[in-house]
C-alpha cells in the first residue's frame, strides 16, 4: 500500500500522579490541536493518564477497552487520526504497562503489553509476551515502551516484520537521559525505520526522581543522508524536545523509507534460529 508523507504529533505530557482527570484534559487539548494542524498519527507517553504510579497500580490501572480508551476513540474518530497512548492496564486482576493503538474509526486496532519489566516493576505489573506490529493506512506501526529500548531484540522483532514507525511511549527516569538517546540512535539504525520516542515529564515523588522528557524522533542516518542534500551528523535526531510539556509535529515519508529499506534491507541476513540458543540453555542451567 502506498502511503506517502504523514504528519505525526508527539505530545510530551507532564504526567502527574493522582491527577488523572487533569492529565486527560491536557492530553485532549493537545490531541485536538494536533488534529487541527493536520496530524494523522498522535502519540502520548507511557502511563499518560496515571503517570508511573506503580505502587498504586491496583487502584489506578484501567481496563482496555474502558472509559479512557472509549474517550480516546471518540477523539480519534472526530479527528480521523491514529492515536497511540500508554496506559496502566488492568485485566482480571493482572496489571500491565500497555500501549494501545486506536484507529480513525474510534476502534482499538491493537495493544502491546510491555514485555520487558525491571525487577522492582515485576512485583506490581506483569510482563507481556508478544511484540506487535499493526498494518494501517499510514504505514506499519509497531509499539514499544521505554524500558524495551534496552533490549535490541525488541526492535529486531518489529524490524523483521518490516515496521515503518515504532512508537515508543516512555516514562524513563532522568538519569537515563543520555544512554536512552544513545540506544534510540542505535535502534533506529538497526531497525531502518522511524522511531517516535514519546516521553512523559514530571516528578515521581514516591521514587524521588523526575522523568527524562527529551521526546524525540529518530531515523536511520543512512536513509536520511540518502534523502537529503544537507544532512549533517546528528540530523538522525529529527526532533528533540527539552523537558517541558509541549507538542510538535513532524513529517514522515513512509514511501521513501520503504524504498530505502527495500534496497538496503538486512532482513534477509538475520538468522533468528541462531539467536539466544545458548543463552536460554544457560538460564535453564542456572535455574
Amino acid at each position: 500500500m502506498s502511503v506517502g508523507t504523514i504528519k505525526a504529533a508527539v505530545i510530551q505530557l507532564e504526567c502527574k500522579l493522582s491527577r488523572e482527570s487533569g492529565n486527560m484534559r491536557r492530553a485532549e487539548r493537545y490531541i485536538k490541536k494536533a488534529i487541527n494542524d493536520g496530524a494523522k498519527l498522535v502519540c502520548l507517553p507511557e502511563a499518560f493518564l496515571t503517570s508511573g504510579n506503580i505502587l498504586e497500580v491496583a487502584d489506578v490501572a484501567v481496563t482496555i477497552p474502558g472509559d479512557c480508551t472509549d474517550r480516546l476513540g471518540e477523539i480519534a474518530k472526530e479527528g480521523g487520526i491514529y492515536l497511540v497512548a500508554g496506559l496502566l492496564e488492568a485485566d482480571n486482576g493482572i496489571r500491565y504497562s500497555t500501549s494501545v493503538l486506536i484507529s480513525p474509526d474510534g476502534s482499538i486496532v491493537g495493544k502491546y503489553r510491555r514485555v520487558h519489566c525491571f525487577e522492582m516493576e515485576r512485583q506490581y505489573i506483569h510482563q507481556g509476551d508478544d511484540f506487535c506490529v499493526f498494518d494501517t493506512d499510514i504505514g506499519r506501526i509497531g509499539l514499544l515502551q521505554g524500558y524495551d529500548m534496552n533490549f535490541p531484540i525488541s526492535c529486531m522483532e518489529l524490524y523483521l516484520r518490516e515496521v515503518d514507525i515504532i512508537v515508543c511511549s516512555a516514562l524513563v527516569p532522568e538519569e537515563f537521559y543520555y544512554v536512552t538517546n544513545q540506544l534510540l540512535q542505535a535502534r533506529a539504525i538497526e531497525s531502518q525505520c522511524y522511531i517516535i520516542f514519546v516521553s512523559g515529564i514530571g516528578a515521581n515523588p514516591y521514587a524521588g526522581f523526575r522523568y527524562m522528557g527529551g521526546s524525540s524522533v529518530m531515523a536511520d542516518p543512512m536513509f536520511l543522508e540518502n534523502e537529503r542534500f544537507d544532512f549533517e551528523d546528528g540530523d538522525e535526531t529529527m526532533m528533540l524536545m527539552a523537558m517541558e510539556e509541549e507538542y510538535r509535529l513532524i513529517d514522515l515519508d513512509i514511501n521513501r523509507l520503504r524504498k530505502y529499506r527495500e534496497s538496503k534491507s538486512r532482513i534477509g541476513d538475520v538468522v533468528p534460529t541462531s539467536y539466544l540458543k545458548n543463552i536460554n540453555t544457560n538460564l535453564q542451567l542456572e535455574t
Partner: protein
Amino acid sequence: MRVLLISTNKIRVPRPALPIGMAYISAALKQAGHEVHVLDLLWQARELKAVLETLKGNDFDMVGVAIRNLDNLTFIDPIFFGPLTLKIIKCVRKYTNAKVVIGGSGFSVEPKPFFEYAQPDFGIAGEGENAIVALADYIEHGTGKLEEISGLCYIRDGKFMKNGTFGTVNVGLIEPDRSIYDKQYFVETVASTTDLTRDSQPAIETLQTKRGCKLACSYCIIKKTEGRGNRFKDPRQVATEIQQAMLDNPAVKEFEIVDATFNVPLDYATEVCEELARIKLTTPWYCQLSPTAINKEFVDLLGRAGCIRVDLGTDAFSEPGLEHLIKGFDQARIVEVDHILRASTLEHTHCVFVGAPGETPKVLRDSIEFSEKYLRPNQIYANLGIRIFGNTKLQRIAVKKGIIKPDHNMFLPTFYVEPETLACADTLNYVRDTYLKYKNWYLWWGLKGQTLVDRARETVKIVQDMHEEYEYMMQGVPRLEDWTKDPAMNEVGKWDASKIEIIQVV
C-alpha cells in the same frame, strides 16, 4: 575570483583515475589569475559532509562541479551518479551565493537533461578550458558575451540555450595542473580485480597527447566531449610533459596516455613514440589502441619507446558486432593484431562488449569460440552490454530494435544487450562458464558467485529503479524548452548579468 572545483568521480576500477579534466580547468583558471581550491570526492567516504565542510570554511564566488561519468557504464553492476551531483548542487546553493557551473565528459554527453535535472547556473559541454575562463570573466566583470562561450549551457529568455562547441582549445598551450592531485593517487596498491595480468599497481601519471577522435564507433560520445577532428600536441611537448611530471612527483612509476585511441592517426602516434624513444624515457607506460592501425613496425616502436602494455579497443569478436559498432576492421584483423602483439614484448588486452548489436546467441557463441581458437592475449576484458547515449548510431539501432523508444531519456543508465541473447539463459550460462574457465578472461567480479541469468534479472530491476527515482526527483521540476533563434521569440544581443536567469532550487 575564488573558485572551488569539485571532482565527483567515484569510480575506482580498474584504478582511481586522476582527475585530469579538472586539472586542465584548474590550470586555465590559475593562468587567468583566479584562486582555485579543489575537493576530490573520490577520497571522501561521505561526500556531502566533505562538501558541506569545504563550503562552510570558505567563501567561494564560483563552484565548478566536474562530472567524469554520468554512470559507471556497466550493465551488470550499474551505478548512477546523477543523484550525487544534484545533492552537491543543492548543497552549494544552500550554503553559498556562488555561481554553480557543471562540466566534464559526464555532463557533455547529455547536457540538456543533465541541466534540467541538476539545475546549475551554467553548464559547459565539451572542452572547458577557454569557456570557464570566459565565464569567470563574465560573472566577475560582466565582460564578453555568453553566446560566444564555447559549449555554454544556460537559461536564455526562460529557455535552455546550448552554445555550439567551437573546439578552439589549443592543446599545445595547455598542461594539467598536477598540483591538485591528491597524494593518495600515488600510492602503490594491490591490482584491481579487473586486472588479471599483475598483482600490484604502481603509482601512475596520465597525459593526453591530443583531443578529438576521427573514428566513428557507433556507441562513442567522444565527439561530444572532445570534438570529432584531431588537435595534437607537439611530440616534443608530450615528451617534456612526461619528463616534468616524473620529475615533480618521484612517487610515479608508470604513466598512461589516456587518449581514447592513441594510434589513430598512426603517423602522429609514431612521431610521439619516436620522440619518447629518442629521449630514452625509462618510465614504463601504457595506452589504448585501435586494431585498425597496428603493424609490426609500430609495435616494435612502442616497445622501444617504453610502452609495456596496450588495451585494444577490439569491442567485439563477432563480424556482426564489429559491423554494427562500426569498428572498421574484421575478425581477420583481430587475429593479425593479436599475432603481432603476441610476438612482441608488450602485454595486450582485448576489451570487448558481450551482446553487441547483432550478437544473437549463435553469433555470440561463435565469437567466443573464435577467440578461444585464434587469440592468445594476456587478458580479455569484457563488459556485458553497452551504455547507449543520445545522438549515437547505437541509439538508433536500439530504437529500431525496440529496446528503447525514440524519446527515451538517455541521461539515465540505458544499455544495449542483444535482446535475444539477454533472453537466452543457455547463452548467458555459456558466457559465464567460458569466462570462468579462463583465468585471464574477465567479465565481472561477482561472476563466480552468481549466474548471469539472475544477475541480469536483478540489474534490469536496478536500472528500472533508477528511472523511477529520476521521475520522483523530477516531480515539480520545470522541463526546459530549447531556445530558438526566432528574434520575435527571444531578445537577442543585450547581455548583462541581469539576463542570467537562475532556476531557484526549492
